[in-house]
Each structure stands twice: as structure tokens, then as C-alpha cells.
């Protein structure tokens, strides 16, 4: 159960980081932390005791392996995470560009 609870912990920690953040780049990194919880959850679900990685090098294919599907899903998730993070940081830079601040509470934003 511990790995599952770790995923919950990291998810909440990432959210806490976002809510208390005073810098948009800091916020983005916290979003990435938040996302890493989903990798852990997926991989932990697919893990099986006394099993090896689902790569059949020289070993006979009859042995017990961990779930390959969750690993494929996690790979997709990681690519999405990198893509979104670089986009978020580019947006943060442009915000800085035009308002000379990365602190969300100092930027005069949309109201009402």
C-alpha cells in the first residue's frame, strides 16, 4: 500500500506547492511534481512481486513480468508532461516579459 500512498502524498504536496507559490516558474515545477505522482501510481499498480521487466532479452518468455501497459501509459504521460511544462515556462517568461514580474500577486490581472 505504501507506494500508492506515496502517490497521494506527492499529488497533494505538488498542489500545496502551487497554492503557496510566489513565482510562476516555481508554480510550473510544482505542476511537474504533481504530475510525477501519476507515474508512481501507474507503475505501482502494474508492479508484481518477483517479476522482471517486460523485456525478453535472453530470458525465456515464460517468466513472470510486471505489467507492460502501465509502463507504456507512463511513457506517454512523461512526454505530455515535458511538452506541457516547456509550454508553461514559455508562457511564464512571456508574462515576465510584459509585466516585469513573476509573482502572480503583483501582476495586475483579469478581475471580476
Amino acid at each position, binding site marked *: 500500500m505504501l507506494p500508492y500512498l506515496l502517490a497521494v502524498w506527492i499529488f497533494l504536496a505538488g498542489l500545496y506547492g502551487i*497554492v503557496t507559490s510566489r513565482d510562476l516558474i516555481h508554480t510550473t515545477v510544482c505542476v511537474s511534481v504533481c504530475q510525477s505522482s501519476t507515474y508512481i501510481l501507474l507503475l505501482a499498480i502494474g508492479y508484481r512481486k518477483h517479476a522482471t521487466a*517486460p523485456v525478453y532479452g535472453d530470458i525465456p518468455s515464460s517468466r513472470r513480468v510486471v505489467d507492460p501497459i502501465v509502463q507504456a501509459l507512463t511513457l506517454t504521460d512523461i512526454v505530455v508532461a515535458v511538452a506541457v511544462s516547456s509550454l508553461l515556462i514559455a508562457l511564464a517568461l*512571456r508574462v515576465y516579459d510584459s509585466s516585469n514580474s513573476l509573482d502572480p500577486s503583483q501582476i495586475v490581472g483579469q478581475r471580476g
Partner: protein
Amino acid sequence: MTNQLRLALFGVGALCVGALLVWGVLDLPAFGHYAGPYGEIIARVVEPQRHMANAVTAVVFDYRGFDTMGEELILFSAASAVALLLREIKEEDTISVVDAVRSDALNGVGVLASVTTFVLALYVVAHGFISPGGGFQGGVVLATAFLIVFLTVEYHAYERLATTRFAEPLESFGAGAYVAIGLVGLGLGFSFLENFLPLGVTGRLRSGGSAAIVNWASALAVAGAFVLIFSEYLEGNMAARYGRGRRL
């Protein structure tokens, strides 16, 4: 909202969400005792059906290759957007960039390292169906090869090699090729993204059928996207440091 108020709002919400999540995960099968059918079936059939030794890559590029197509397009769209957002710097801003260090030894090491990385990248992509690796991992390493040129040789050499002029078409081509391969299969009377090539022998580099081409297409898309992202960040950085730019 004041900080305290926000934190209180978040605290209440996080308490509920946390309880909900814990309540949910406690009903999962005990850690290490997962017995779901999907992965089990794939692990059993991948070798006979697809002649691939790496079940994960088989899922990524064959069984669930359509998801990966969407993933490449996400990367493609994000990289294009990064380029769009950071392309405020005018060309002249980077002309005045001079390299702080100029050393033939460093250049030599750089070229060597870059070539080594390049070969490593090709290896990681090519062996994706045999050992851990594949288009994404290899693609990022490929992008790194260009980066090493920048770090050790010269900024302008990097710029010539890897400006957006070259990276953007590369990533578009890679992502487009992924979709196009699916269409080729469709044109030949197969399903979209269905294998239409001989599968080859398991463990050989030429195994994998059309998923192998898809793998290379995604390597190109990933390499292009990351070169694009890296160069947009680095060019902007150079301009901010040394250029005469009006903005960042």
C-alpha cells in the same frame, strides 16, 4: 484572496481530496499482487504476434500506437507554441553574441562528444524493440547531440546546425510521417496504423514491421521538437545576455 484565506480553502479541499484518494487507493490490489488481464495478455502474445522482445515498446508503437500518435502531436503542438511564444527576439539580437571561451581543444572534445552522443542516440532508437529505449528516449538524446555542439564548440555553429529553420520542419515531418504511415496502411487495405511489413526475426534490428518505421518517425519528431524547444530557450537567453535586444 488573502494568503490565509486561500490556504484555508485549499486546506479544506485538500483534506477531502486526500481522504478520497486514500479511500480509493486502499481498494487497489495489494502492492505487488496485480493480476489484471491486459498486461498479462500482451506479455504472452507479444513475441509470437509481433516478434518484439520489448513488450513496452511493442505496446507504445504497435498495440497502442494510436495513443503515441496523439502524444507526438501533443509534443509537436507544444514545441510550435514555444517557438511562437519565444520568437519575439529579432535575428540581429544574436549576431553580437561572442563566445566567452574559444579553445581548439574544447572544440575537438565537443565534436567528439557530439558525434558519440549522436551514435548513442541512433543506438537507443534502433534497439527500442530489443532493449529499453525507442523513439522518445533516443530522440531526446539526439537533440542533446546538437546541444553539445552549442556548449563546447560555438554558439553560431549551433545556430547554423540547429536553428528553428531546420528543427521546425524536422518535427513537423516526424509527426506528419507518423500519421502518414497509418494512412499508407489504410491505403493498402489494412486498418489505420496496422502493420503492413514483414515482422522479421525477434531480437534483430530489422524486426518490428511497420512499427519500426513509426519508431523512427517519432524519433525525428521528438528530436526536432526538443531541438526547437532548446534553441528557442537558448537563443532567447543569449539575446538577453549579450544582445542589443529591446525585450528579454
